C-alpha cells in the first residue's frame, strides 16, 4: 500500500446529525427526571409495602365517609386535571396561545383544589391524633408511611402548580413556549400517575369494612 491510500477527499460519508430518540433535549431531560422520580416514589411505596406486609397490627381506619369519598373526589379532580393538561399541551403545540393559557390555568386550579382537599384531610387526621410517630389505631408506622408518601406526592403537586402558573402566564403574554408547556404536562401527568398507585396502596388497602 502506498501514499495513495490516504486521499484527501470530500466523498467521505458524514452521517447527518441525529438523535436516536428524536426529541428535544429538554423533553428528554424531563423524561429522565421522571424515571428517577419513579424510582424515588417506588422506593417509598416498596418500603411501605414491606413494612405493612410484615406487621401484624396494621390498622385499617379509613371510613367510607369522609376519607374514601374525599379520595374519590381528589382522584376525580386529578384525572380531570390531566385531561385539561393534555388539552393545554395540544393547544400550545397547535399555536393557540389563549387556549393554552386557559387550559393550563384550569389545570393549576384543579391542582389547587386537590391540595386544599388533601390538606384538609391531613388536618382531620392530625385532629384524630395521627402523627408521624403514633396514631390511635395501632402500628405506629401507619402514620409515618401515610404522611411520608402522601407528603412526597403533595410536594410534587404543589411544585407542579407553581410551574403551571409560571408557564401558563407566559402563554397569556404571547411568549408561550410549546416545549415548556409540553414538559410541564409530562411532569403533571406523571404526578397524577403516581396518585393512581398511592390511592389503592395507601388508602384503599386500609379502609375499614
Amino acid at each position, binding site marked *: 500500500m502506498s501514499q495513495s491510500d490516504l486521499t484527501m477527499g470530500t466523498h467521505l460519508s458524514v452521517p447527518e446529525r441525529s438523535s436516536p430518540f428524536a426529541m428535544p433535549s*429538554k423533553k428528554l431531560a424531563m423524561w429522565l427526571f421522571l424515571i428517577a422520580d419513579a424510582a424515588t416514589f417506588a422506593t417509598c411505596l416498596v418500603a411501605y409495602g414491606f*413494612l405493612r*406486609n410484615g406487621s*401484624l397490627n396494621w390498622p385499617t381506619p379509613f371510613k367510607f365517609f369522609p376519607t374514601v369519598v374525599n379520595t*374519590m373526589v381528589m382522584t376525580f379532580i386529578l384525572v380531570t386535571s390531566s385531561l385539561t393538561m393534555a388539552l393545554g399541551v395540544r393547544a400550545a403545540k397547535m399555536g393557540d396561545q389563549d387556549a393554552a393559557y386557559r387550559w393550563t390555568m384550569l389545570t393549576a386550579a384543579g391542582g389547587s383544589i386537590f391540595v386544599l382537599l388533601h390538606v384538609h384531610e391531613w388536618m382531620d387526621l392530625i385532629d384524630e391524633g395521627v402523627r408521624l410517630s403514633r396514631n390511635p389505631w395501632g402500628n405506629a408506622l401507619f402514620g409515618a408511611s401515610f404522611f411520608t408518601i402522601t407528603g412526597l406526592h403533595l410536594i410534587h403537586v404543589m411544585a407542579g402548580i407553581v410551574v403551571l402558573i409560571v408557564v401558563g402566564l407566559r402563554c397569556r403574554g404571547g411568549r408561550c413556549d410549546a416545549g415548556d408547556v409540553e414538559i410541564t404536562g409530562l411532569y403533571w401527568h406523571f404526578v397524577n400517575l403516581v396518585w*393512581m398507585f398511592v390511592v*389503592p*396502596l395507601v388508602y384503599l388497602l386500609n*379502609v375499614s369494612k
Partner: protein
Amino acid sequence: MVLTNRQDDRGAPYGGNPGKYLLVYFGILVLAGLQFAIAYQQVNVTAALFRMFALAILEAGLMVVFFMRLGAENRPFVTWIAIVTLLVLTIMQSSWPDSYRMERDAPPNDRSPGYRTGPSQ
C-alpha cells in the same frame, strides 16, 4: 438557558379531534372507580392488592401512552425507557421475601403454625 442542537421533535403531530383524550379520560375514571369497588369486596388483602394494582398499572399505562404521548415517541426511546424503568422497578421487589420474615427471623415455613399470627414477645 438550554444549549442544545436538538430542538426538533419528530413525535406524532398534534391536531385532529381531541376526542381521543376524552375517551382515555373516561377510561381512567372507570378503572379508578373499579379500584374503589374492589376495596369493598370481601376478599383478603393480597387478592385486593393484586386486583387494584393491576388496575393501577392499566391506568398508568393509559396515562403514559396517551396523555404523556409515549406512544407517539420513536421506538428506540420507548424501548430504552421501558427497559430502564422496568428493570429498576422489578429488581426493587427483591426485598419482599424479607418482609415475610420480619416478625420472626426465620425463612417462610408453612409447617410452623402461627407463623403470621404469633409475634415473638
